[in-house]
């Protein structure tokens, strides 16, 4: 579908992604190289390891108005830094728990394992996540604003 002049289109979610350099960022690269199409909603921030993702970044992104946050790293056991993704899993699942307990939209946060060869999976994750966020509408609980 061509969307010239699509500026008038309805609301588009803004999704921030934190992707590890070695697997998930490379997986996203592969999706591109393979010309797999997915929504334009995601802005990826490259970190060296999913272990670099401080839960505060996720909360900050929400506060700044992100409608969804996706953190992606290597599959368990495949971490380029041996164990960074295990640490990320521990911290971020607990943070997700906290989102749940405060009722601040836990479903706007998603973690995934995407390897360098999973371009297809990456695109699927982004597509599904975008759909989910679209259903939820703009995030206001942590940003306080209209988005």
């Amino acid at each position, binding site marked *: 579908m061509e969307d010239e002049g699509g500026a008038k289109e309805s609301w588009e979610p803004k999704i921030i992604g934190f992707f590890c350099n070695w697997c998930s960022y490379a997986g996203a690269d592969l999706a591109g190289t393979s010309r797999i199409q997915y929504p334009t909603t995601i802005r990826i921030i490259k970190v060296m390891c999913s272990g670099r993702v401080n*839960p*505060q970044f996720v*909360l*900050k992104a929400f*506060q700044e108005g992100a409608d969804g946050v996706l953190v992606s790293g290597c599959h*368990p*056991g495949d971490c380029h830094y041996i*164990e960074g993704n*295990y*640490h990320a*899993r*521990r*911290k971020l*699942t*607990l*943070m*997700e*728990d*906290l*989102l*749940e*307990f*405060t*009722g*601040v*939209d*836990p479903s706007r946060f*998603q*973690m*995934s*394992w995407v390897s360098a060869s999973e371009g297809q999976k990456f695109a699927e*994750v982004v597509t599904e996540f975008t759909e989910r966020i679209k259903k939820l509408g703009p995030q206001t*609980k*942590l*940003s*306080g604003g209209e988005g």
Partner: protein
Amino acid sequence: MTDYKALEKQIQDQARQWLESGEVKYVIGFEKGDNSPVCRPVFIYKPEDAGKLAWGPLCNNNLTKYLVEEVQIKPKKGEEPDLRPVGIVVKPCDSKTIVELMKENIVPRERVKIIGVISEGTINPKALDKALKDVPLDKIAGIQILDGGDNFTIKYDGEPLSVPKDELLNGKCKVCVVHNPVVYDIFVGDKVTQIDKDEFEDIADLEAMSDEERYEYWKEQLSKCIRCYACRDTCPLCYCEECVFDRTKPYNWNEKTVDLPENFFYHMVRAMHLAGRCVDCGGCERVCPMDIPIRKLNRFLLKRAKERFKVVPGINVEDKAMFGDYDIDDPGEGIK
């Protein structure tokens, strides 16, 4: 039933002995104020002042905050630091804090001599205030409280009051399962038999709510927060040299604005910082001027940390820090 007077005597004697021998630099304990029934922190430097040390169910503060201050103070240039241990009076929950502080390399064991006192619960001053409604205002400062089993007996020069414990106890004491100090040099009191109960019953109602209801709940509560940061300032585990919430250079983690998003951010981040560490001493909630049930956040994470990662803080110095460690079998059910 606790005989507060007897415990008080033992505390005083021990403190006096340590101060006389010079084994400790000073003793951090509680004293009874002149104008309030509630006890307050005191620092005893001389053996002859040991008699000021008080003990009772109104000894609420977690004094280990001052221990952190003591070890963090850098000696002035050219001054030989006095590295003698400091004596401190702790309740069981406060002693758990010391375990965490030792675990986290903040308080070396040799810098502290611990008078560990058993406790079957302390009284919430706000609840006490309600109970004293009919006591003449000028008598309030002088009341005496005795342990009467299921009741507290409040004595003053009128008809003594008997108030069910449940009405007066601090919330944290109602759910506490550790009634004996876990680390101490001197154990004061008779060992209390541990009780077995659902320690997280107090958050069950919140957990049962829908996300939306919980959000509304927290919205109401957190909108009250004036971000005085007293909850942080009183927490012995908030010992950071510079708290992220005070940082303005080169960036601020949160704005000074006092509004709902910033308040949420503050509370969620602090909860994360205390996750797997909070020993539920209740300090934060007690000092909150706006009566925000901060402990519920901490306790929820405490519960999840236990369920998910088998982490229980404040018990064993050898345990690894929750976020310094991981297990390959940690759950991650929501991960795609």
